[in-house]
């Protein structure tokens, strides 16, 4: 290993990036842009669901019932309609996500001790959101029923409403959420996206850096000189590692400052693990650069091999445990799963070496395998 030659390559690469405005912007802006777009764009909190009501009863009780929806922070009341004809177009244009219809004689039937059906129309295009909306509606109705029952019993037995309420629903759920007390999905998404961005951008830059030389022919300077394969790969990589190391810090800062996510773990552990992860993902980019010849192909292939595991097999969207067995096994073949555990562990759970050593070890192993494959397949005397 000759350090002069490693340095020659790294220094040349660095100056080229500094002068190439497009590449420079891409190196530092791309991670931030992807991060912010996805961070703001994806929220799994279902709040302020727009809705409209059709009150065909118009009595004190129906208004009381409706107000339980109107006053909820989960719903956004858009207004009343006078006929169910008007609901369809509103739903179709996504002006509202659900509608509630109170039938005539709602109060009369309830007071007479009969049941009354309330209809709700929910936009089912996005099933997850529809399910959550249905859950809210059911909860509000259950609560309404319990209170009606309590009022009824209270009046009959001559006890206070509070006491009657305890009688009606004797088991009560007390749940406390750990690590993310307010259940803000943005906390977990923003920290989880660090995993995604660092899966996508380092291989992107590394692949472009190598393929660029292949495409314009300057790789022949390398082939024709006495620089060894490892010196060249190391020199190339050092530059992109430096950029990615800076990007880790930028992303970290954004997660804390922009999304207000707490960082509870060990910063040194997290940074070290992130650098290992970046070495790993950049290695994937290097592999890409070995099989493609043009920069366009490099971009396409990198996006596919990095976005897919980061989205689907990391546990960011779907918990690994709830996956069918085949994708579950696949998930363990990608580094994203291990690094996501490290990120969430560090940010939200305050974990460190003791708890996450296995995941770090998995990343190290992964990086070694990728780099060995890349090294063995990089030739200074290719067949074409």
């Amino acid at each position, binding site marked *: 290993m000759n350090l002069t030659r490693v340095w*020659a390559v790294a220094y040349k690469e660095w*100056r080229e990036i500094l002068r190439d405005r497009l590449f420079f912007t891409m190196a530092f802006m791309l991670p931030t842009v992807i991060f912010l777009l996805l961070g703001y764009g994806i929220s799994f909190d279902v709040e302020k669901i727009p809705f409209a009501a059709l009150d065909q009863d118009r009595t004190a009780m129906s208004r009381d019932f409706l107000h339980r929806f109107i006053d909820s922070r989960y719903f956004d009341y858009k207004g009343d309609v006078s006929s169910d004809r008007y609901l369809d177009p509103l739903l179709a244009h996504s002006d509202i996500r659900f509608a509630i219809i109170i039938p005539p004689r709602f109060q009369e039937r309830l007071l007479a001790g009969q049941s009354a059906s309330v209809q709700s129309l929910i936009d089912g295009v996005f099933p997850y959101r529809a399910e959550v909306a249905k859950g809210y509606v059911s909860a509000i109705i259950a609560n309404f029923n319990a209170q009606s029952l309590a009022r009824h019993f209270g009046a009959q037995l001559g006890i206070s409403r509070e006491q009657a309420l305890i009688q009606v629903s004797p088991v009560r759920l007390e749940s406390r959420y750990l690590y993310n007390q307010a259940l803000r999905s943005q906390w977990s998404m923003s920290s989880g996206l660090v995993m995604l961005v660092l899966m996508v951008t380092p291989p992107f830059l590394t692949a472009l850096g190598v393929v660029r030389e292949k495409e314009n022919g300057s790789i022949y300077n390398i082939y*024709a000189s*006495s620089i*060894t394969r490892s010196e060249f790969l190391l020199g190339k990589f050092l530059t992109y590692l430096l950029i990615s190391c800076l990007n880790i810090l930028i992303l970290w800062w954004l997660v804390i400052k922009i999304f207000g996510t707490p960082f509870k773990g060990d910063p040194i552990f997290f940074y070290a693990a992130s650098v290992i992860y970046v070495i790993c993902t950049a290695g994937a980019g290097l592999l890409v650069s070995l099989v493609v010849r043009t920069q366009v192909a490099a971009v396409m292939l990198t996006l596919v091999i990095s976005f897919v595991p980061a989205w689907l097999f990391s546990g960011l969207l779907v918990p690994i445990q709830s996956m069918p067995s085949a994708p579950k096994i696949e998930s363990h073949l990608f580094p994203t799963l291990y690094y996501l555990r490290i990120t969430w562990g560090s940010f939200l759970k305050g974990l460190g070496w003791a708890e996450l050593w296995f995941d770090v070890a998995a990343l190290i192993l992964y990086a070694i395998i990728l780099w060995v494959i890349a090294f063995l397949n990089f030739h*200074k005397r290719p067949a074409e």
Partner: protein
Amino acid sequence: MGETTLVSGQAVIKISGLCKSYKKKLAVDTVALTVKRGEIYGLIGPDGAGKSSLMKTIAGVMSFEQGSLEVFDVNVDSEAAAEKIKGRLGFMPQGLGLNLYGDLSVEENIDFFAQLRQVSPQQLAERKEKLLTMTWLDKFRDRPMKNLSGGMKQKLGLICTLIHEPELVILDEPTTGVDPISRRNFWAILAELLREHGITALISTAYMDEAARFHRLSLMFNGQILTSGEPDVICQQAQGYLVQLTAEPQLEALKLLKVRYPQIETIGSRIRVFVNNISPDEALKAVSGQLIGVEIKNIQVFDTYLEDAFINLLRKDPLADQSIKEAIIPCFDNPLPDNQGIAIEAKQLTRDFGKFRSVDHINFSVRQGEIFGLLGANGAGKTTAIKMLTGILPPSSGEGTVAGADMRFAGQLIKERIGYMSQAFSLYHDLTVMENIRLYASIYGINRKIIKQRLAWVMQIAGLAGVSGQLAGSLPMGIRQRLALGCALVHQPVVLFLDEPTSGVDPVGRRHFWDILVHLARVEHVAILVTTHYMSEAERCDHLALMHAGRVIADDSPANMIQALQNEAGQMLKITTDSPSEALSCLEQANIKGSGLYGRHIQLLALDTETVENQIRVLLEKHSIKLISLEARPPTLEDVFVYRVLELENRDQA
């Protein structure tokens, strides 16, 4: 370079039975070659002949399948073996500055190569200074590589390849796309550096006229070496003579001669025929005998040039011969009358890019039926001028007219009468030949009724029969350029603009291309404006304008330009000695001006040839340098080009 002492018997490169293929295509086909220490060895051949593949395998940057390759007595049969030779070798791949780094400055590029090659800082400083001064790049050391001209890029590439003082350099087409002056300059520098350090060089080129600069060379075609040897010896292999004549009417004479002599070309008003296997007198007789009913005005016999020898050798190869076969060229649907009107005119045409004046008040005019050549170094403003005349770029001042219409305001009607083939003419590489033509036909809105007929016409005029189903990307350069021409002709334009249409194309391909141009001009009376770096092509134009730094510095017919130089500066003396470089320094000390090393010869222009000749004889005798031959010849067009531009540059510097 000519120092025989340097060319020792020791072989630096030894190749036998070498084969290299890409998937199914054989690129190098059982090649055998030996390059000796100190030798400048040339590989000449058309695009796709296998030169680059061969050079890459020799440089150890590409593997091969069969045969043996020894470089510096190392048997290069594996990647590990190839590593052993790389420290002693310099390789410059094909493409203008493509292996350099555009965003880095001249100096940073050199520093990178030096670090890569582990040149010590003191040595680097010393060599860099010397090489930069020698190549006149010292003023541009901070300029980013991408902002250099083509010639400068190549010189920088040479510095970067030589910075570690390799024992062997492999240069792949270092002069393609470079103008004649930069080329001469490049060769002079290269020759001096090689001589100084006794470096062995393997160099490929598509320019036949550079062949004289090699000690030995190989002609390559279709992956094989057709012949190898010293340039003079290869010329003699053609075993024939060139007969040059002017006859009236020219077209009739051409027709008569073509029947018997396939190797024929027109140069302005002259016709040049290659005649096989007979003595000069017999050649004269045979050609005259063929021209019955035609008035012969002037007829002369010359020795063959390498280009003719090359084409002649190719003719013996049945595979190559197909590509040169003459075809009957069909006519335009609506032939133009032979009216000799002015087709293209530039009046005080000027274009500024910011503070930089690219084209500076140029004037010229092209008649209908005339082939007009625009010559000039890279960056002289040729492409900008063409862009203004075709209406692509608005002029800063002055006007460019085509068929009398000002191109600034020209409507669609005028534009439909223009054909334009740009420097980087983009064919769709993934479409077949026929699909490309059809696409251009529909872009130009050719009537559906005649489209079939027109496609057939294009295929025929561009000589594309037999390749209609092939992908454009898979064609050799020569045929691809004809396809590009065919696409530019699909609407049968009456004015044709061609910007370096034959750069990098082999002599056979270029001749075929020019035969089509001559036909278009003579028979269809199309006005053609063409730019080129090939002097053999410039000779074939009816009229030339020489551009330098945005201005037209000479505007005349090729013959008149040569005559003017002869009147002004005299004849070209070609001096052959046993040690050319010593002889050159003798002449320089004796203050005999304008002498330059050209291959193994020294050349200089002299008005009073007899006096200068005597002077040289005395001088060489005094330094006991053996004079092998001394002959005077009229200057060539390249001499005109170089003389005129240098004259201006010297004046500018003074």
